């Protein structure tokens, strides 16, 4: 196979007079998986958006299926078989699973949808993906991981020749990730070329044929995936050598911070007990559906509690509502940042200060200067890069920077207990390290108890003082110190 599916040559792109891509080449052969690595802001998204016709390049040429195009629009790109799977969901939550899989291209004739046909086909596709999802369920009632699979299923129905996957596994559990890889292997056999954007280096050798690394708008490394060394890739991404992927230094903590006993919520989890010391970071590791994130939701008052008790620094706390929890010194960082975390149209300073307005105000009036001060206090400590300063809208920041702002929100509020759900989902490697460092340092300095629910074992290894593993709504094992490692976590959780 000599003919490339897609060829981008000397692509340059400027926004606002600032060049963000400095002449990048990219080729993709049929049946090939190209892993595209790079930190946020490296230009990965811009590059694939150019391939998908979302934005025109400033200069350079695009060749898809032997046709050289100076300009490519979204419709042309679709015609040529380019499909994108984004990290953020693009579905219609109020429609059924089957309707979502065929969104906009429902089978049928004369303007009528052939429901039986559609459901049958949807079932077939989901079976091919080896997932057990009811085709009649409302998409909005599914978990994020399941909805992500629907997006992939949709692309499969649309005859994709070039599939761009922008961090599709960020929200998936390990089993779902493996399932996706099996599907990708099948697609490879059918000659589909895939560009796979990820932050998880361990996935690269499993799924990719070649790896291309972007840094600051330049292509800095293109190598065969099989022999690619992790250190080499990280160095290429960061431009310098990374820290060893090792456990954080052990810290002794004492004094009960957060204590939950026989905690239960319906079918989601039951009889969960744990004690987190002041200043300690505990990770609750479990796959999506294991109940780990649900425990945190219940502590914060977002999910009904059917039994058990919660004590915060020795005082009994009855979860009632988020309002109650936040005013009782509990902070909560949701997994779904866009929907539940950030105020997209508001400034970074406001987003950071929102949980501290009461403390910042006198007689109900907030001094905007205090907000700006709070922001500058944390923007250095958290390494938040907001080019336009405290008034920049949060929606214009990268995922990692947004997450740092939302973390700063609870640090500024001086919470005693911090609950974090998937704190680095969709965050690039560099920012991820920052976030782990910040969480650990802040926990030690302020003495708050931190409970993290995550389905990412790497995160547990890098972040936790202690790890609890959940499966089917129960805590099944506990690891401390150097016994926290990827292998034991994964085997305990499955």
């Amino acid at each position: 196979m000599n003919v490339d599916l897609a060829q981008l040559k000397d692509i340059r792109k400027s926004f606002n007079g600032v060049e963000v891509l400095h002449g990048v080449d990219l080729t993709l052969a049929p049946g090939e998986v190209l892993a595209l690595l790079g930190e946020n802001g490296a230009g990965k998204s811009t590059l694939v958006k150019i391939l998908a016709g979302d934005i025109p390049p400033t200069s350079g040429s695009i060749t898809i299926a032997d046709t050289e195009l100076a300009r490519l629009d979204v419709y042309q790109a679709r015609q040529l078989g380019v499909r994108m799977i984004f990290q953020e969901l693009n579905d219609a939550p109020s429609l059924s699973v089957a309707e979502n899989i065929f969104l906009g291209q429902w089978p049928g004739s004369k303007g009528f949808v052939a429901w039986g046909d559609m459901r049958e086909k949807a079932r077939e596709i989901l079976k091919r993906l080896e997932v057990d999802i009811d085709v009649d369920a409302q998409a909005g009632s599914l978990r994020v991981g399941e909805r992500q699979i629907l997006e992939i299923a949709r692309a499969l129905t649309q005859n994709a020749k070039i599939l761009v996957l922008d961090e599709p596994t960020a929200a998936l559990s390990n089993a779902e990730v493996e399932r996706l890889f099996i599907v990708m292997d099948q697609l490879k056999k059918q000659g589909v070329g895939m560009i796979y954007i990820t932050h998880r280096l361990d996935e690269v050798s499993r799924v990719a044929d070649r790896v291309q690394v972007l840094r600051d708008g330049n292509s800095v490394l293109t190598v065969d995936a099989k022999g690619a060394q992790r250190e080499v890739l990280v160095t290429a991404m960061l431009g310098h050598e990374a820290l060893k992927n090792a456990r954080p230094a052990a810290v002794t903590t004492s004094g009960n911070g957060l204590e939950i006993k026989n905690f239960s919520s319906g079918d989601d989890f039951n009889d969960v007990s744990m004690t987190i010391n002041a200043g300690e970071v505990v990770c609750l590791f479990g796959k999506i559906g294991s109940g780990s994130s649900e425990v945190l939701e219940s502590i914060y008052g977002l999910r009904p509690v059917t039994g058990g008790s919660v004590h915060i620094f020795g005082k009994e706390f009855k979860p009632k509502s988020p309002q109650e929890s936040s005013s009782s010194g509990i902070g909560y960082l949701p997994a779904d940042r866009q929907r539940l975390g950030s105020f997209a149209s508001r400034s970074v300073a406001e987003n950071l200060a929102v949980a501290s307005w009461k403390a910042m105000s006198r007689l109900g009036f907030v001094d905007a200067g205090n907000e700006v001060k709070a922001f500058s206090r944390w923007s250095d400590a958290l390494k938040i890069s907001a080019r336009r300063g405290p008034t920049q809208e949060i929606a214009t920041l990268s995922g990692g920077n947004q997450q740092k702002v939302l973390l700063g929100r609870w640090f500024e509020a001086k919470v005693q207990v911090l609950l974090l759900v998937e704190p680095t989902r969709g965050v690039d490697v560099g920012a991820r390290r920052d976030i782990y460092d910040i969480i650990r340092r802040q926990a030690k300095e302020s003495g708050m108890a931190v409970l993290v629910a995550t389905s990412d074992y790497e995160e547990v290894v890098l972040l936790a003082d202690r790890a609890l593993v959940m499966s089917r709504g129960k805590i099944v094992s506990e690891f401390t110190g150097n016994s926290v490692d990827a292998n034991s976590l994964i085997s305990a959780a499955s």
Partner: protein
Amino acid sequence: MSKTTEVEKDKKRSIPASAPLMAFFVGLFIYFSVASEYFFDIENFRNIAVALAVTGIVCIPGTLLMIAGQVDLSVGSAAAVSGMIMANMVNKHSIAVGLAVALVFGLTLGIINGFLVTVVGVNSLITTLGGLATLYGIALLIGNGQTVMMRNFEWLGTSQPWGVPLPVLIFTVIAIMGAVSLRKSTYGRSLYAIGSNPNAARVVGIRSNRLLFITFVLSSVGAALAGAVLSSQLSAADPNAARGLELEVITAIVLGGASLAGGRGSMFGTILGLCTIGILNNGLILLDVPTFWQRVAQGLMLIIAVSFDSLRQKLNNQRS
């Protein structure tokens, strides 16, 4: 390039939300000043201000609601009912009783609207659309469909302490209170947060329902006050006098840059929007344009303003 110059450059480049409206306002102002010899005149400006005061009193809480992502369509009919109550009470009892009953009516209506939206969970557009129809009917019922004349109650609408018409004074006080609380108070900031992302507002611990409830009450009380002022200006309560008030209010707010989806907007923008409508209406009258054209112009202006705002946002998004 140093960091500070980069920041300054970015600041300069982003288009302020109210810039197009400001340009339009200034253009319109200059045009009318040239086209009509009566326009640029202190007495005429006073007329414009008086004509705007009633709408303005409703616009202030309306802006608070719109920023929180809610809308109150019942304000026009509420003002009409308030006027009818005034007229009946003033004629039978006293001005004080009339004002008190009208404001209690506003309070009650606000509580009902707030209850339906925050507790029962009905969409505010639907709730207050129902209110619009119901209250208009009630206004007609109270006066049997007739205009009710009033005696000795002109001061609220027509007196001029220190040379400033009282309605304008009332509006100014309310506008300042509104602007300050929107910009500076936890209440105002919370409204922005609620409008920007209601789910996140709940998660972060903002008492959204309570704040929305309060804002609906403010909106209805504002409408009741506006109705009293209007009836005083006319020395009569006319069930049709405040018809279409809700549209004028929404036009002013949206012209001023507030987003119907919530999370954006400012008091300054609303007041600028209000003034634009005011000089447009006034200028067209001075130029002897048939009054029906006022409606056409206002409607077109709303559409253009919204389109302009969408374009501006698209531009800003593309650059970031």
